[in-house]
């Protein structure tokens, strides 16, 4: 049976073991694996069915009724009756006069679905009209406007007018339901996505519907709050403006935001993200689906950890210290100063502290710098923390795997750092280059007195931190949203960061600073583009062989085996296997 669909839209069997069934969608026949939800079957052939409550990562209660479609089945045969089949082997479809929800029902042999019939359109009109009866229609002041399903479906499937002449039900507004989230009950359409998310994914079931009936309100139990570290995901999945983020609300209209695919650098998980930015400023981070990394979620801590990009401490120009005072300088002068200071020392006197928060490309350039200087002391700052049972990894550095591979670090990273610390304390190390690390933090463990004894301290960082304040030369670098590059997460997956905004002020991309510094110390190296860095990296480090930055793609590629698993993904796979969710 040749399906009439175009090749690219033709659904394919996920696993050959699952039997296929023939389904007619809007007059055309297709094949789907048995068990496929009707809504997914329609989506796969480009017939999107509007929906609110259905979410592939959550159970399907079928309560919003927006996905109602007209459905038909083959006629029931009398005993002994032969099915009547057309030339292609399909039986005629008897259309059922009552619509069916596409989200919770699965396809069946010889089923027919009409996503654009009079009955289906009528259902959508009706559902939209009822949903809008008590909706405040406050789009001009609603933060969801522009990415609101109710707004979108109202345009696509609504009637354009209202026949409702009565009083709208008044419900609580601007309710503080947790430290990061605000609730507007009048906007809520009771789809229960947030309730299911807190029940099924975050294991913190504090949300529920009280006063069921015409006054139904979404509520947290008195005295409780929606405060778990995954709470902001409810804002993402809320199809309307009922749940809004305290951090993002009223900051920027969403249609002004430029969305850049990147990853979160808050821990070793590397959750895939979209960075929303406008005119050089990052306004929000939202999770981007990647079923090998973070499903469709991310933690609140990682999501909100970008405000330091426009901190008051952000360095805007290179600085050199003369007679104890930092003065703004130019890039060539500052690079020259750093090079001169470092060249005055032999490799045994130089330590380079490299951050595992840097991209592979930057680490590769750091390695070049180390080799050019002949530096004998190299360390990173390990950040061991507590993992959680969801996404947060124990490793708080986003690119420890990359640092180990590219810098050739082996064994205990803390011991390496300790040896640098001791070398600085006993005066063997006379010059230190620190790349994106503040040495005066508890994690790095240096103290100001010993740093003061150094003859040269070169700092590359974004912020005017205490170490930068002691530095002889300060080179302002870029933040995670300001660079293109790659990192390797705790499971060994190579993923890509993309540039959402330009580096602040005169700051430069870290790899460019390192290139210029290497050039000033040891001569030319002919690198002009980040792609060139990756090309050299791929040529120099075995694991990267054959890869380019663009080959990494938006979802990354598995690079090395680490044996780490993601607890949240394990549970999700179980739920998919049990048929509880689509996934």
């Amino acid at each position, binding site marked *: 049976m040749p399906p009439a669909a175009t090749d690219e839209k033709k659904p394919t069997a996920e696993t050959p073991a699952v039997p296929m069934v023939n389904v007619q969608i809007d007059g055309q026949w297709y094949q789907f694996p048995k068990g496929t939800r009707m809504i997914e079957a329609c989506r796969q052939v480009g017939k999107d069915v509007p929906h609110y409550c259905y979410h592939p990562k959550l159970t399907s209660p079928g309560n919003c009724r927006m996905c109602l479609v007209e459905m038909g089945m083959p006629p029931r045969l009398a005993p002994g009756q032969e099915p009547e089949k057309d030339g292609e082997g399909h039986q005629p479809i008897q259309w059922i006069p009552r619509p069916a929800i596409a989200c919770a029902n699965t396809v069946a042999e010889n089923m027919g679905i009409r996503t654009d019939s009079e009955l289906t359109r009528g259902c959508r009109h009706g559902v939209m009209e009822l949903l809008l009866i008590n909706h405040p229609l406050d789009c001009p002041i609603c933060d969801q406007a522009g990415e609101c399903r109710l707004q979108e479906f109202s345009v696509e499937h609504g009637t354009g007018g209202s026949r409702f002449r009565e009083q709208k039900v008044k419900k609580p507004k601007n309710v503080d339901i947790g430290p990061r989230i605000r609730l507007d009950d009048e906007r809520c359409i009771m789809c229960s996505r947030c309730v299911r998310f807190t029940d099924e994914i975050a294991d913190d079931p504090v949300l529920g519907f*009280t*006063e*069921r009936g015409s006054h139904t309100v979404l*509520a947290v*139990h*008195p005295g*409780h709050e929606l405060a778990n570290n995954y709470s902001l995901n409810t804002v993402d999945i809320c199809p309307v403006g009922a749940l809004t983020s305290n951090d993002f609300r009223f900051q920027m209209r969403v249609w002004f935001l430029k969305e850049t695919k990147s990853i979160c650098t808050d821990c070793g998980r590397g959750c895939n993200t979209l960075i929303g930015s406008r005119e050089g400023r990052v306004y929000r981070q939202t999770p981007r689906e990647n079923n090998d990394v973070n499903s469709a979620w991310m933690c609140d801590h990682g999501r909100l950890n970008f405000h330091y990009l426009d901190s008051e401490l952000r360095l805007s120009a290179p600085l050199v210290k003369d007679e104890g005072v930092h003065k703004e300088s130019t890039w060539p002068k500052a690079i020259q100063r750093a090079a001169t200071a470092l060249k005055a020392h032999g490799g045994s006197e130089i330590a380079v502290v490299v951050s595992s928060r840097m991209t592979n490309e930057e680490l590769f350039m750091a390695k070049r710098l180390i080799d050019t200087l002949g530096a004998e002391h190299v360390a990173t700052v390990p950040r061991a923390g507590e993992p959680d049972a969801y996404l947060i990894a124990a490793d708080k550095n986003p690119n420890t795997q990359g640092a180990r591979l590219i810098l050739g670090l082996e064994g205990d990273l803390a011991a390496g750092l300790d040896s640098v610390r001791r070398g600085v304390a006993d005066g063997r190390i006379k010059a230190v280059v620190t790349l994106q690390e503040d040495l005066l933090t508890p994690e790095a463990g240096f103290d100001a007195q010993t740093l003061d004894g150094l003859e040269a301290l070169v700092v590359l960082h974004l912020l005017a931190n205490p170490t930068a304040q002691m530095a002889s030369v300060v080179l302002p670098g870029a933040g995670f949203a300001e660079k293109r590059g790659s990192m390797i997460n705790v499971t060994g997956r190579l993923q890509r960061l993309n540039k959402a905004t330009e580096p602040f002020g005169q700051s430069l991309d870290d790899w460019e600073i390192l290139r210029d510094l290497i050039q000033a110390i040891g001569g030319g190296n002919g690198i002009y583009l980040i792609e060139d860095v990756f090309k050299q990296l791929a040529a120099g480090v075995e694991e990267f062989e054959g890869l380019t930055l663009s080959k990494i793609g938006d979802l990354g590629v598995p690079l090395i085996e680490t044996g780490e698993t993601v607890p949240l993904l394990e549970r999700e796979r179980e739920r998919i296997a049990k048929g509880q969710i689509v996934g």
Partner: protein
Amino acid sequence: MSFTVPQELEKEIDERITHYPVSKRSAVLPILHALQHHFGYLSEEAVEWTAAKLELQPIKVLEVVTFYPGFRQEAPGKYHIRVCRTLSCAMAGSYELMEALCEKGEIDRSAVSHHHPIAVGKDGKFSIEFAECLASCGFGPVCMVNDEFHENVTPDKVEDLLSKYE
């Protein structure tokens, strides 16, 4: 005020839970009924207690409590009167009955709202609320005083009715 469930009642509740071997959650209605019967209403503590008993989040119990008008979240008087206001009774004069009951029972209903349906008299002896159909449509207006049922309660019978409850 501390919330303590007497041993006897808790034993009865534990027994009720055994009726639902598949999911304890299903015992939420019988437990709430038992608690309301004993305490007269369902306080926040009662909701929390039920949730803990059934290993649920309190919000899941609150959802049930707020759904059924039969569950009270505020303390009623010694005698709680429920006046039917569904169609047959309404036509037979349940609103007049309500007025008469409030007047004779000295109950002020001015603060009653959707969220606070019960009005309690000054001395706490009587409390009153409207209820939907009490299933005696042929004999309206009808009302219930605690668990006792009264039919054909025209306003002139109110004084007699209230005097039965001391």
